């Protein structure tokens, strides 16, 4: 008879075990994106912060990634700095100038000191830039148009280009603009960036300790030249999914910039943890691959027309992702925001929910396609919940327009290989992906579709498109470049080189008593913890 109460409990659990009604999804239309959290009023001795995983290294030339960047952005500084509104301004470089379109002159600050007390020199900057440009290092692609880098004065560096490069100053606000203490980096050798080595930087925090497998601690640098941080030290530990939710809910952690929107959804309406959403360049996209199932642009456009973006956002991302017509988030609009926002509204091949007319047109496009898939279209993903929902929705959309599709799910480490290795993608036609760019300029995404680009997996080839991209990249004037980039964007989305799904806001979860960091994606490139402190009592 003990079975009866047990079944009763099970029935009760079952009855209540759906997601809480009305509390699970947020209407993207009401989601407010903010650049900054309210300014902190009081110091805090110690803050426990989470990153999704332990970094492999803190040397961003060796390997990037959000966990390492979240830490390094507080320790190291860049020649230019991304602001919370995703614009950039000179930082370790006091000013930048273009005497001609193929020359960039950086005038350096004279008051910068590294954590060991030694002053930053032009030689340190020259060393750092050449290190970033090394073809073996992560940032080398940013230097593709660079002809030479020279020290042309005691505090002056001159960069010359083979052709004008509008993105290079943007890159100097990212990891290609990090400035290291040459002496310390050379002394550390291959150990630089590993547990036990120093930081060789000049930021408002110093690297205090890295206990491998346990934590990374940064401490306030009291000799910092600028405004002193309110936080005495920040201890980083790593957790994801339910462990991350539990750590925040129990107060074991004070904050996190989350990778998974499901985590943010779990704190909707909960007391004790504040949620902030900010601009990001990240977007959810479907990327056609070399295998060729979506080689025909008409098939790709048909899929775009039939995709239920709103459903994906609601079911897979708690309503926090916003259906989006371009493959890059609004955080990339570092200039000409109004022009880019208006251009986004003109794009009609990416409906939030497909109408009957969209489906009719999609089926017509499939009928007209010259390269129809010879077998099922294989959709590649891993088992993360949001991506699984995207894969299911893509398969459903393909079936609704008369195309057969199947899903290939792989473990997450293998999924990561899809992005970097063509061989890993040989069995899939379409990758369920999220993608962000490090620059506040959409052209930083669209140049991936030029002929021969390593990220142009589907082999999109259009000489006029290539020419339009080159012209935009070579135009240094922001307003003129915006017009050119919008033209490139129109061509890109017409060909559905990638199928845009939704833009993903940057998401900050933070203890209710704390405030100060930017809510935008700027945290990856600027010392966000310097503004972290307690709210006014």
């Amino acid at each position, binding site marked *: 008879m003990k079975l009866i109460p047990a079944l009763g409990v099970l029935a009760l659990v079952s009855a209540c075990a759906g*997601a809480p009604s009305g509390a699970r999804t947020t209407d993207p239309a009401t989601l407010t994106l903010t650049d900054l959290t309210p300014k902190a009023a009081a110091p805090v001795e110690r803050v426990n912060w989470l990153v999704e995983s332990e970094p492999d290294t803190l040397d961003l030339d060796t390997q990037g990634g959000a966990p390492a960047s979240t830490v390094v952005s507080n320790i190291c500084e860049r020649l230019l700095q991304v602001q919370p509104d995703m614009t950039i301004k000179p930082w370790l470089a006091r000013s930048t100038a273009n005497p001609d379109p193929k020359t960039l002159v950086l005038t350096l600050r004279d008051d910068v000191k590294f954590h060991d007390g030694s002053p930053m020199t032009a030689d340190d900057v020259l060393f750092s830039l050449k290190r970033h440009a090394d073809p073996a290092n992560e940032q080398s692609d940013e230097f593709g148009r660079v002809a030479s880098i020279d020290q042309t004065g005691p505090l002056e560096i001159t960069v010359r280009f083979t052709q004008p490069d509008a993105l290079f100053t943007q890159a100097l606000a990212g990891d290609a603009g990090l400035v290291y203490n040459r002496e310390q980096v050379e002394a550390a050798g291959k150990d630089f960036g590993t547990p036990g080595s120093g930081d060789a930087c000049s930021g408002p925090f110093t690297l205090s300790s890295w206990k491998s497998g346990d934590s990374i601690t940064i401490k306030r640098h009291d000799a910092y030249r600028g405004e002193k941080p309110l936080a005495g030290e920040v201890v980083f530990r790593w957790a994801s999914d339910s462990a991350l939710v539990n750590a925040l809910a129990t107060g074991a952690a004070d904050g996190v910039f989350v990778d998974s929107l499901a985590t943010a959804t779990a704190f909707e309406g909960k007391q004790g943890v504040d949620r902030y959403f900010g601009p990001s360049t990240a977007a959810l996209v479907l990327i056609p691959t070399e295998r060729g199932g979506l080689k025909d642009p008409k098939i790709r456009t048909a899929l775009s027309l039939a995709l239920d973006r709103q459903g994906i956002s609601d079911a897979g991302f708690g309503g926090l992702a916003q259906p989006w017509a371009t493959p890059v988030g609004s955080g990339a609009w570092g200039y000409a925001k109004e022009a880019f926002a208006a251009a986004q509204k003109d794009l009609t091949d990416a409906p939030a929910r497909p109408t009957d007319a969209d489906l009719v047109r999609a089926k017509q496009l499939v009928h007209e396609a010259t390269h129809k898939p010879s077998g099922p279209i294989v959709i590649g993903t891993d088992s993360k919940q949001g991506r699984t929902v995207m894969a299911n929705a893509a398969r459903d959309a393909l079936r609704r327009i008369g195309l057969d599709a199947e899903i290939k799910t792989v473990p997450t480490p293998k999924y990561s290989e899809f992005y970097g290795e063509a061989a890993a993608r040989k069995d899939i036609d379409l990758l369920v992906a999220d993608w962000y760019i490090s620059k506040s300029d959409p052209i930083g995404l669209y140049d991936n579709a030029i002929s021969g680009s390593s990220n142009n997996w589907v082999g999109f080839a259009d000489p006029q498109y290539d020419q339009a991209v080159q012209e935009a990249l070579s135009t240094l004037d922001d307003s003129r470049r915006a017009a050119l980039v919008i033209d490139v964007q129109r061509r890109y989305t017409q060909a559905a080189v990638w199928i845009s799904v939704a833009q993903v806001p940057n998401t900050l979860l933070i203890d209710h008593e704390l405030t100060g960091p930017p809510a935008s994606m700027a945290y990856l490139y600027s010392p966000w913890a310097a503004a972290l402190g307690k709210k006014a009592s």
Partner: protein
Amino acid sequence: MTALPAVLPAVSRRPAGVVAAAVVLAAMAVAAIAAPLLAPYEPDAIDLSASLAGTSGTHLLGTDASGQDLLSRLLYGARTSLVAPVVLLAVAAMIGVSLGLLAAWHGGWVDTVVSRLTDVMYAFPGLLFVVLIIAVFGGGMTTSVLALGLAFAPTVAKYTRSVARAEIVKSYVDAYRVQGMGGFRICCGYVAPNLARSVVGYLVVLFGEALMSLATLSYLGFGAQPPSSDWGLMVQQGQASIVLGALLPALVPGVAIAVVVVSFNVVGVWAADRLGTRR
């Protein structure tokens, strides 16, 4: 109408737990076979507007994140989850019974070699062994079933050897020898059939463990792959919904696994006792 009164006394002689477990297993088997008739939806049909819905008249056991009906997936998943352990145990039995008989019949150095070999395999963690095989040959349900079959084989071999050693000293074996019958014929034609009851009883006991091991592999991402509705895979996929307050996607397949494993253990132990398998 005469059948029921005839069956009732037989049922009443069995413990209630065994009867309940047998009923559960029979129901699961029927559900698996009749899944296309019983399931209200296709197992991979999505409804994004019904994501993570709770129990309702439309979805009796709720839905997962993609709005897939959990009852339909559970019913279709029963096919994989119940058939795969049978195949696994067949592989383990083919290898294990052969090795066990070989060792028992020949004795001497053959017995020593086979016994030490099974001891070594027995000492190696089964799941680790399977993960190593999957690392070499790739994941998927087929590899997982074959690899786990190999991992279970030493257990079956050791059991078979022990019961076969008791069997081959019986007088009927000497009688066949005296008649000039060859060892292979005696072994396969007479000894092996006499061991069948005992070995089958033992395999029934192992069924629950086999199901659990396969579910574990699918949960870890090595076994069944989406969009399969394998129960272990359903638990893994439902796990992410827990932080959203939706327990059903993980709870429903988890309970199904637990109920079937417990039922098989109850029936298996009872059958083993009846068949003289347990020692």
